[in-house]
Every structure is written in C-alpha cells, then in structure tokens.
C-alpha cells in the first residue's frame, strides 16, 4: 500500500504523506499555504473552493471541499494563484477584473477556476457559472466576463505533466483509499474489507465525510475501473457504465436519450456533474434523486455485479424503500441499460426546484407515452421523484391512460387522478399539497407543451 500520494499543484510535483486520504483537497491546499482557494460551505453548494484538475477525465472544475485527497492521486491541480504567469493575469482573470465581476471577492477565485476549466471543455454560456454562488454582484458582470471568449494557449503552461493520470492507492495508518484498476479488483477489495465503502464521484460520500467525520475510513474508488466506464450501444439499447460521470454522459449521449440529456442539464451544477456518477445517483436511492424518474420512464434495467456473478433487475424493482435498494453487500451497480424504444414516443422531463438552477428537485417528473396513429395511448410510463419514499411510477394512471385517446380531457382526468395518487411529505421545498398539485399539473403541462407535436 502506498504511503504517499503524488500530485502536481500549479505545475510543481508534490508527494504527500501522513495526511489522511480522506482529507479534502481544499483543506490540504489551505493548510499548505495555498489560501487563494476559499471555503464557503464545505458541502459542494457554493463553488468558492473550485479548482481545476486534470485526471482520468481530462481538465475539469471540481469542488475541492468534497474531493478527498485519495481521489486525486496523480492529478494535476491548478488554483487561482497558479494562473498568473510572469506577472500577467490569465485572460479569464483579466476579463473578470475588467467586468467588475468581483466585489467582496470571496467567491472570485472559484468563478475564475470555473471559467478557466470551461476553456478546456469548450463549454460556453451561463451553465459554466451555475455552481458558483455570489452574494454581491448579482452575477451580471460575471456573465459578461464569461462571454469574452478565450481558449487555452497552444503551449498550455498549466497542464504539463506527460504522465498518465493513473489513480494509485494511498494509505495513512488505518485509513485506506484504494484505486483498483479493474472491476474484479474492486469487488475483491470490497469482500476483503467488509466495512469498506465504494466511492465513485464522492459527491455524496464527500459531503458525508465532512459532516459525520472520517475515522478509519476504507474507501474503494470506482473512478478508475474501466469496465464501469463503458458506453455501449447494443441491439437491446444503450448500456451506460455505472461510473460514467454526468458530464461524460452529457458529452457522449449525443441525442440518443433525450430525456436523460435534458435532465442532466438541470442536475446540480457543472462541478458536481464533473464528479457525480450515474450509479452513485441510483445507489443513494434518494427519493429526490433526479436520474431515477427519468430512467424509470425510459424503462431502464440495472446490472448488478458481485464476485458471485451478475444479475439484472428492472429499475422499477430496484428501490425497496426509503434509501434502500435490492443491492447486497459487496455488490456494485455495473451499468444501466436504456432500452431502445420500438416506436417513437412522446416524452418529456420536468424538474421543479426552489430556484432556477443548482437545486435538488421539489418534484421531478418524466413521462413517456406511445401513441397509435389515431392518438390512442398504447403504452405509458409516468415516473416521479420527490413524492414518495422512493422514486416511483404512477402505475394506476399509466393503466388508466392505456387505450384512451390523447386529448385534453384524458390529460385533465389523468392529472386529477395523479393529484390523489401519492402522499408526499411537506418540507422546506414545498408543502405536501403543493407537491400533490404538481404531480397533476406537470402532466397537464406535458399535454399542453406536446399537443402540437402530436397534431403534426
């Protein structure tokens, strides 16, 4: 087991030892004097801690407050301090300063790094800024800065390592961070260390480590497991590897699963999507997990693997109760298969949150209907998040729709039934009544927004 961990920080190679593998990258940076990177929340919510990293997935902006050191072995890390070369500001710094994008300035290094990383991904527009909070500027000048186009220089001075970013194991005392390089390796580690926890993007695990403490943690990272990162198109459909990140899915789906792609755009924010994985989102079995309703509406199946073999379950049978699933100890989600529809379907996905972006759902809904030529519904999948202990399908209303004409009346009647179907809870994001109303209203919205499509 390696007792030290190698990283490059702002161009210099560094060997770290004696610092727990679950120490967050942010804490390490700040404790080692690189205080340009700020902490605003330690939970991935504010983006003040954003740094750019280059690892197995290329250059990305990440929230360093929830990335454990173990997860960045052999990464190159660039912080706001590292951007200035020979006293000259980086173009994104220059643009931000010019536009008046920094008032109190506490959020600024985080914005700088989001803009910087976007140069590499080629991402443009407001999406780049969604994961960074600013209380002073009201974002407008920052948006302006984001518009000044710039691209990495040909002789990029920031990411210079020629070493492949191969994840390596790292231990300090009883704390281990394993980075297996095969699925078998990962499964063996899990069976060898019964208390070990799989970690993929760590966007849930990282928050938990910060909140609950991190003594004697044994983590098995799935980030570098090649079998979990494949995207394969088969006759049956599209098989998505469990450890694909949401950013990777956005980049690679290419219009093949429009429902999922739409949802991905309103999932958290860029820094989170750069780390969070498909399987991680399903494994947490959060009742407001955003990918589940979409995948339920797609009729997806989940492949589970263990040392004993593999099995496939329908996603609709995967969740068993509040934050519980059919997963057994030592079992991993290998992939999710989205079946290819036999015929074109009428589909839509909605996410209602408390603010315009970067929030979990109050209610999420995904609808998928198949209509015959005379507008008779022949198949229906209506799925929701945020209305029950698990993501759910509205099976009764699906049944009701089948055989009925797709008309305003049917939609209204279905909406009425939907409103009475679930018994959601009240919380900060919305009262139970509001959620019940949404369950129906979203379906009506679906009808209004897509009736023209059907007529055509």
């Amino acid at each position, binding site marked *: 087991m390696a007792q030290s961990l190698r990283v490059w920080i702002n161009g210099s190679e560094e060997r770290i030892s004696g610092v727990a593998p679950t120490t967050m990258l942010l804490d390490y940076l700040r404790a080692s004097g690189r205080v340009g990177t700020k902490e605003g929340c330690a939970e991935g919510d504010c983006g003040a801690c954003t740094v750019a990293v280059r690892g197995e997935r290329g250059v990305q902006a990440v929230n360093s407050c929830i990335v454990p050191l173990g997860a960045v072995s052999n990464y190159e890390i660039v912080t706001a301090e590292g951007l200035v070369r020979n006293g000259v500001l980086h173009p994104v710094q220059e643009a931000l300063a010019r536009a008046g994008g*920094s008032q109190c300035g506490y959020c600024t290094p985080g914005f700088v790094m989001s803009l910087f990383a976007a140069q590499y991904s080629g991402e443009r527009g407001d999406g780049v800024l969604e994961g960074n909070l600013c209380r002073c500027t009201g974002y407008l000048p920052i948006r302006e800065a984001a518009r000044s186009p710039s691209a990495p220089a040909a002789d990029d001075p920031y990411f210079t390592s020629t070493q492949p970013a191969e994840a390596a194991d790292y231990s300090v005392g009883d704390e281990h961070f394993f980075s297996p390089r095969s699925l078998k390796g990962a499964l063996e580690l899990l069976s060898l260390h019964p208390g070990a926890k799989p970690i993929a993007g760590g966007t849930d695990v990282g928050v938990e480590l910060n909140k609950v403490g991190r003594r004697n943690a044994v983590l098995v990272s799935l980030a570098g497991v090649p079998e979990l990162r494949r995207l394969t198109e088969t006759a049956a459909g599209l098989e998505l590897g469990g450890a694909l990140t949401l950013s990777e899915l956005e980049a690679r789906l290419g219009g093949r699963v429009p429902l999922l792609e739409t949802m991905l755009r309103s999932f958290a924010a860029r820094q989170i999507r750069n780390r969070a994985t498909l399987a991680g989102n399903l494994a947490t079995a959060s009742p407001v997990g955003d990918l589940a309703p979409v995948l339920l509406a797609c009729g997806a199946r989940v492949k589970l693997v263990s040392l004993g073999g593999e099995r496939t379950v329908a996603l609709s049978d995967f969740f068993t109760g509040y934050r519980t699933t059919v997963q057994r100890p030592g079992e991993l989600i290998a992939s999710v298969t989205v079946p290819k529809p036999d015929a074109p379907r009428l589909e839509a996905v909605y996410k209602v949150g408390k603010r315009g972006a970067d929030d979990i759902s109050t209610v999420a809904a995904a609808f998928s209907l198949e209509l015959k030529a005379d507008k008779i519904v022949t198949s229906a999948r209506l799925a929701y998040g945020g209305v029950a202990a698990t993501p759910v399908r509205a099976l009764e209303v699906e049944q009701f729709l089948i055989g009925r004409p797709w008309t305003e009346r049917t939609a209204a009647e279905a909406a009425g039934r939907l409103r009475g179907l679930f018994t959601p809870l009240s919380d900060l994001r919305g009262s139970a009544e509001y959620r019940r109303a949404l369950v129906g209203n979203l379906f009506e919205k679906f009808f209004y927004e897509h009736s023209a499509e059907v007529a055509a």
Partner: protein
Amino acid sequence: MTRMGRGIDRIEARIKVTGEALYTADVPVENVAYGVLVGSTVASGRIRRINTREVERMPGVLRVFTHMNTRYPGEVTPETVGELRLSFSDDRVHYVGQVIALVAADSLERAEEAASLVRAEYEEAAAVTTFEMGLPSVFTPTVDEGYVEAEPDTSRGNFEAAYADAPVRFEARYGTQKYHQTPIETYATTALWEDNRLILFESTQYVVGAQTGMASVLNMNPDNIHVVSNFTGGGFGAKGHLWPHTIRTAMAARELGRPLKVQLTRPQMQTGSAYQARTQQTIQLGATEAGDIRAVSHTNISQSGLDDRVEPATDLTRVLYDFPNLITRERLVRTNHNTGGAMRPPGDGPGLFALESALDELAHQLNMDPIELRRRNHADRDPDQDKPFSGKALLECYERGAERFGWAQRDPVPRSMRDGHELVGYGMASASRLQQAMECQAAVTLHADGSAVVATGVAEIGGGSYTTLAQVAAEDLTLPYNRVAFRGGDSTLPAASGSFGSMVSASTGSAVKLAAMDARAQAARLAVADSGSPLFGVAIEDVVAQDGRLVRRDNPNRGESYASILTRAGRETLRGHGRFVPNEESPFSSYAFGAQFAEVRVDELLGIVRVSRFVGAFAAGRILNEKTATSQAKGGIIYAIGTALMEGVHHDHTSGRLINANLFDYHVPVNADIPSSKLDVIFIDDGDTAVNLLGAKGIGEIVSIGVPAAIANAVFHATGKRVRELPLTPDKLL
C-alpha cells in the same frame, strides 16, 4: 476635468482575481492553534455538565473553554457587540446553537474531531421556538440600554377620526421571514497576543467597532488592540458587530499563550451572527375616492431573540409620504433565538414590503395607477421632522424609471397580460433610505515623488470603498487616479466609519475629502512662503489645484507640482488630516429615494415566479464611481430577489433546531434566477449639496428596499393573487 463619477476599475481587482487578497482566515500566523465552536442542542435551560475533561485528554487538544472557565473582565456595549449577554457568561442556554464550548487543538482536524465529541447534559426548560408560539405574549418594548433605541409608538394628526371618516378604507396584514445575510465568507477570527497587546484579524464591517468593543469587554485600552481586516468576504450586516465567539477567541488565545484561529462553519453562521428578524405588520389606510390618503396606521410586531431588539419597519412610513394622520407602533415577541441585527436593508426592507404592497392594493381598489397614487401623496417636506429635504427627486425617479421600464404598456387589469403559458405582470414600489453619518477620520499623505496615499481604517466588504475613497482624494488633489494609493482595514489607521448603513462614501468620504483639502492647503502654504516657488507671495485663497499642480487662480500657467513643492522644502511627505463630524443640527432631512419596477412571469401550472425584467431609478446624491455604484446597485437588487422569492430561516417547532442552516437548503439566488441582462439602473442627480461635503448618499441599502414589494405587486398584477407573506414561493400561488 472631473475624476469622479467615472467608471474606474477597482484598486484591488487584481489581487482578488488572483487569490492573493488575504481574508481573515487566510492570514498566515505562526504557531497558530485552531478553535472549533460547539453549539447547544437545546433551546432553553441550564448546562448541568460538559465532558470537558474527557475531551481535553484527546490527542492534540489544548483546552476546552466553557462558562466554567470564563470571566469577562469588562462590559458589553450595544453599539459594538451583537449580543449583550455573551455566551459563556453562565450556565444558561437561551437558544439552539448558543456557543457552549470552544475547543482548541493543535490542528483543525483534531479540533473538529474533539468538538464533535463534546457532550453537554442540560436541564431543559420550556422554550418559545417560533414567532407563532410567542405571539400571544406580544408586548410593547421600552427604550433601554440595549437595542431598543426609539420610542415604540409615534403619531401625528388624528388617525382614529380620519380613518373613521375615510370613504375608502383598506386593511391587511403582511409578513416577512427571518432572513440570514449569508455572505459567502463565514465569520473568521484569529487572535494573537504580543505581551499585553492584542492583534485581532477579524472578518468585520467595522474595524473601529471591533477595536472599541473588544476594549470594553476585555477592559483594555483600545490602543493596545490592533484590529486588521484587509478584506471581508461580504457582510450585509452579519459582520457589523462583534459576536461572542470573537471575544472568547481573543481571551482563549491569551490563556493558551498561543495564537488561536476560529472560523465559523456555514451552519454556525445562522446563530453566530446577526439576522433580520421576522416581522408581522398590519397596515390600515383611509383615503378619499380620488386617492388622497388621509389616515394610516402601521403596526409592526418583530420577533426578538435573546436581547429585545426592534426590526424598525415603521420608520419610513412616517417620512416617505405626506400622510396627515398617522400612527405607527412597534411591538415585540420574545423567542428563544439569538439576537437579531441589521441585514441589508434593515427595517425599511420589511417595512416597505408592507407599505408598498398596501399602496398597490389601495390603488387597485381605487382603480388608480399605482404611480399616480404615490404622486398624489408625495411629501414635499419631511412630514415627520417637519423639515425640508436636503434633496429629493422621487418624482423624477417615478418618471424616468417608468419610461425606461415601459410602464405605459401595462394593462391595469390583473391577469390581462400573457406570454404563451406564462402570465406576465408589472409592479412597482418606491424606495427610500435615511442618510446616516458617523464621526470619522482620514489622512491623505502627499509624497515627494508626486504620489499620494489615503489612509483610513475602513473595512472593504465589497462596496468598492477603497477605490471610491482613493478617487475622492484624487479628485480633490487633481492627481491622476493611479497616483493615489489606499490603505484601509486596520485600526492603527485613522478611525473610519463602519461599512454599513450605506455610510462609507458619505462619512468616510467626507473625512477623506477634508484630509485631501488639508494636505493641499499645507502644500499651498509651503509654496507661497517659498521664494523659489512660482507661487511665492500669492494669497493662499488664490492658489487652486489643477491637473495635479497647485496654480494661480488667475494664471494657471504659474504653478508647480506637489512633488516640486515637497522636494524643495526637503519634505519626504506631507500629511493632511480630515475629521468628519456629522451635523446633528442640520436644518434638513436627508434621504435617498428611488422607484423600482419589476416584470415577472408566472408559470400558472407550477406557481413559479421568474423576474424577467427590472428597472431601478435612484436619486442618491452624487455618484462617486459609476462603475462600482452600478455594480453594487445591481447586486443589491438581485440580493433582494432572494428575499422576495426564496430565502427564509426555518426552525423546528418543537426543538427550535435550525432546519436549513446551510447553502443547500437556505436558497440564495443563482445565476439562473437573474433576468438576463434586462436589469437597468438609473442614477438621478438630486442636486443635494447639503447632505455632506461630497453631495454623496449611500446606495448599498436603498437598491434592495423596494424590490420585494415591486415583485409582489407584479405577481398580483400577473395572477390576481395577492401574496402578503414573503417569500413568494410557488406553493403560495397554486
């Protein structure tokens, strides 16, 4: 050529984008120990026992500080300390999150670990955890030594009679939430002692306040306290006072004989600093059919915490319009919460949400344009003080704001405007803010190389003070802006005003102006007395500054630069001093005014409100730096969109615990909530020369004040639904 008013980039922009700007927690301090705070888990009671012994045995733990080992040597002063009964004073617990222990260890991880193992046993007592619970015991506060500064009731004319006689009457109740300022930087403090001198790095809006407040509680000479706050990562009122943890940290550092650093976690922010108290307000309006408002009563019940404190929501009702018969009342409800404080915009924000919503409702009832109703009741003089305003251009704000916004396109009928599936609504509100001032000082030093340095201990919290104040000096000296450096954020510099109450530009700006004038006068005196100077023998009053030189008024070609005056006099530097003392006896009443216009789009099926356009027109004196002012104004408008649409602190009714003390659940606006570049700010010169030397008024608060009402009024116009309780969350509209 004027150097003011232009869009000049911030002095500190460069070091902010590179990460070099040092905030409190960033300042490296040798051998520093780390402190982590532990909050109580109950809302009321006494601490029976804390397992400090056990925790102190953990590796790396230096000491655990609690009420058992705390004695404050001095006294608490309400002007500078946020909570009068300091935590650790005794074994009593008054609210969830009250600091009951400070764990110091040799590393942050160890301090966190140890703090997580601190356990207290409590003798719990009944607690009033919410506003509703306390409401039955609502009471009239009395002016005290603490935070109840003004008489709770005021009146003029005869409200009862006028209301009874009014042909049109309106009455409604409004509510605003408990809000937290939520700056992105959490509060941080590092204390170190050098002999008997305390050096305190502090996230603060008020360097002098931190110094004097600390001096009072620690019973020390303020000269032995050195407060440093180079940059503060946003305050909005949260960092206007000293909070108990800072005081205990300073004492603990002394007891440990080692520097100690404490940074609040995000969840600790909601109980470790101020917040804006929840209010419930009742407004009665009596008017004529023609819209002359004859009678107004405005009663505000604000939620108080550990110390009685009024969230003064009725102040502007006395001033903003010419209401002849008026009653205002402030009432309190005591709850087991920490002490509230100022949050941008204090008092007037909640207050104008109620008043400006009520006026909109009355206008609707009267079938009258909301602007017309306001015009009809315009106050030409301050009806409260019975004084003329030093400058008021509110009518122009209505006019120019309405024009820019396109108010004329508004169909007055609610629900009449649509865009696809969305309902569209226009709403407006007035805004105003008293111009506060504070005694303060500044120095302007001319150097023999021709540059100048402005020094005043102001905290830079984001408003661009360093830049604006350097500009004030540059303008007076007629030096190019880049020849003027700025030093601030330090209590060893001349004492500046606090960076709150929108008063930096006006108060500290005036002090800087006086200091520059003093430096210029001294230089002139040197020159006229020096036979080698082209100004030799010229009468002092005939020497003026121009293009960075002192010249003869009647012949600008005759003169010389500051550099040559100083060099010839053999002076390295020449220091001008400025002291600004507010004029308590001013014959004028000074306010900034504004009119704010919102366009909203409401998705009827989802209840979601989106602000699609916003125009703010402000008459706030002379704008010292258009660029920082515009950016601050836009930021303030968007800040208040949060207040209007999504923010609010929530407590569990039974336990009093905080439910959303994090950025995941306490929602502040994100980029996507902001109208895409359709946010306009207009500054209107009100020609006010009496308000202060610079003719400048603060804008930090007024820009936020009318926003929630303008949005609520627009939502009514869009949907026909009147929401009287902020925030306007979707469930209120379905």
